[in-house]
């Protein structure tokens, strides 16, 4: 998982170890820039500019977080920043809004729905894609290059091209509004990225391993399970994170195939909350923050895999 076998990027063909899995990474043979001034702080202006940018980036999130903790009167009458100027408000901060909005907008159900949609839509495509990726990486067959190019082109295709016909088919099958409609759609839409990402990773695995397995009499099926899947875990993980965030944060597919109602995920619940601002800003803020907690936690704890996935194949349909 160090920089030695990282995925070659689309970005920089032939250049090694660009995405080494972490933000700072390992810098092979890099004795520049920092060489002379390791331990020395960066110039003041650099730190100032970056501090300002960070502030700019995080202040909107703070605004939401603070608003979600204020009582109704404070949130209606003053901006969230007055928490800093009139400290008496600090004593009135409350988590009441969360319990209120969860009960009122039925966010508990929406959370369960989001989980129920996201988990299968994330896990099911992995194995299917891994088999296809194996074939593309290690097997010779007629039409391989054409099919691979097809996969690459489909990375660009927007989901909108498929929605209306699928809706009609789903209508005939009577599955509109049910989870399976969203599962299958997300599996289909995510498949080309999955195959592409995992294949790119597998293509960097040493061919000799496969060859020696073959000499030992292992079939492709055995090689896949015993050797390639365990070696490809980083790629499988980075696709899983992509797909998780993608499905969890999706609005379009959910609106089209699930729609508002008893099966709605958090994104749709939040849209309807936003439409009812009369109930109070603090509730909208609490609801908004509630929908973000899980993806932010997943993201922060699995960042390195996410970065690896980004640098490996930077397109997502």
């Amino acid at each position, binding site marked *: 998982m160090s920089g030695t076998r990282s995925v070659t990027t689309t970005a920089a*063909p032939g250049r090694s170890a660009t995405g080494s899995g972490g933000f700072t990474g390992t810098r092979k043979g890099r004795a520049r820039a920092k060489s002379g001034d390791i331990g020395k702080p*960066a110039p003041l202006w650099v730190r100032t500019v970056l501090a300002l940018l960070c502030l700019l980036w995080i202040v909107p999130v703070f605004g939401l977080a603070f608003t979600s903790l204020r009582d109704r009167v404070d949130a209606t009458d003053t*901006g969230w920043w007055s928490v800093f100027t009139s400290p008496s408000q600090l004593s009135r901060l409350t988590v009441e809004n969360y319990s209120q909005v969860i009960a009122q907008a039925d966010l*508990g159900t929406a959370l369960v729905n989001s989980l129920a949609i996201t988990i299968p839509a994330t896990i099911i495509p992995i194995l299917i894609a891994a088999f296809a990726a194996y*074939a593309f990486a290690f097997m010779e067959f007629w039409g391989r290059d054409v099919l691979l190019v097809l996969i690459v082109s489909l990375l660009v295709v927007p989901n909108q091209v498929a929605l209306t016909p699928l809706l009609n088919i789903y209508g005939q099958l009577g599955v509109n509004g049910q989870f399976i409609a969203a599962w299958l*759609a997300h599996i289909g839409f995510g498949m080309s990225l999955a195959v592409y990402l995992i294949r790119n990773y597998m293509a960097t695995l040493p061919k000799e391993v496969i060859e020696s397995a073959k000499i030992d009499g292992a079939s492709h099926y055995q090689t896949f399970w015993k050797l390639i899947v365990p070696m490809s875990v980083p790629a499988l993980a980075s696709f899983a994170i992509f797909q998780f965030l993608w499905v969890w*944060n999706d609005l379009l597919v959910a609106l089209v195939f699930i729609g508002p109602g008893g099966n709605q995920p958090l994104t749709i619940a939040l849209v309807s909350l936003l439409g009812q601002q009369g109930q109070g*800003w603090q509730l909208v803020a609490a609801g908004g923050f509630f929908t973000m907690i899980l993806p932010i936690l997943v993201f922060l704890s699995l960042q390195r895999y996410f970065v690896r996935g980004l640098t490996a194949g930077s397109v997502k349909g």
Partner: protein
Amino acid sequence: MTIKIINAVLAVLCGVGGAVVLFYLLNKLTDLFPRRMHERVKPYVFILPAFAAISLYLLFPFFQTVVYSFANRDSTAWVGLQNYSDLLGDRGFQQTLFNTLLWILVVPALTIVLGLLIATLADRLRPGGEKFTKTIIFLPLAISAVGAGTIWTFIYTQRPPGQAQIGLLNAIWTLLGGDPVAWLQLSTGRLNSLLLMVILIWTQAGFAMVLLSAAIKGVPSDTLEAARIDGAAEGRIFFAIIVPQIRATIITVFITVIIGVLKTFDIVYVMTNGNFNTNVIALSYYQQQFVNRNSGSAAAIVVLLMIVMIPIMAYQVRQFRAQEVAR
């Protein structure tokens, strides 16, 4: 509620288990072929389920959509090119196309400038500071467009004059002596569209930064050393040495952000629903299909969107080929 979770877990078990069984059976099935055929048949068996999913969910529906685009609103009669000529002649749709073009021109460029700036500067920090900075800039990527819309509503919202402003932008604006402005309704100079673009840039800059930072770290140190010894200024080094060497990455980020821009639906849907002259092409599909219930027109919009995508697709494929050769 527990039933839903049990259902989801069952779906995972059935889905994954089903896939395992399927591949196992397919594998056994190919063993029935004469031995010398195995090597020929197996690859197709391995890719079959993935391509079944792709064909069923992208390829087949896409052709169907193309067919719909030549039919009337409920796909019961052919209308030829009527949908296209109606769309292109419609003043509202022309505005939508113009807005989309504006998004394409503004968002990728600004995203890259910001990403480059942050990547370059953060590279000069100590590892701890660099990681911290990058995490903060990267974080919005985990937030849904609806969530981002909610966050930025608290920046753009407006109260009547005389009341305390609870939106940050209006608070600053009135502090400077202005009257409160309904920012998202102000289409003069497409200001409201630009403010919506800010939201997308806020979520995408981290993505650009990560890729560009990785590329900058890959620039060979000797070229930089040589320039420093020659006494080149840091700015000169950046534009004359670093930028040319990371050109490929810049283009990749550019393309990826353009693709994201063309698909942008949720930010506009949540913030203005396309009103006040902020509509974009991906949202207008949704409105035609689900508000106007006009499948023909909606399909034509998607086909137009695909036509815009073709050069990008061609570039993507060319890039991929080059990368394969380099492998």
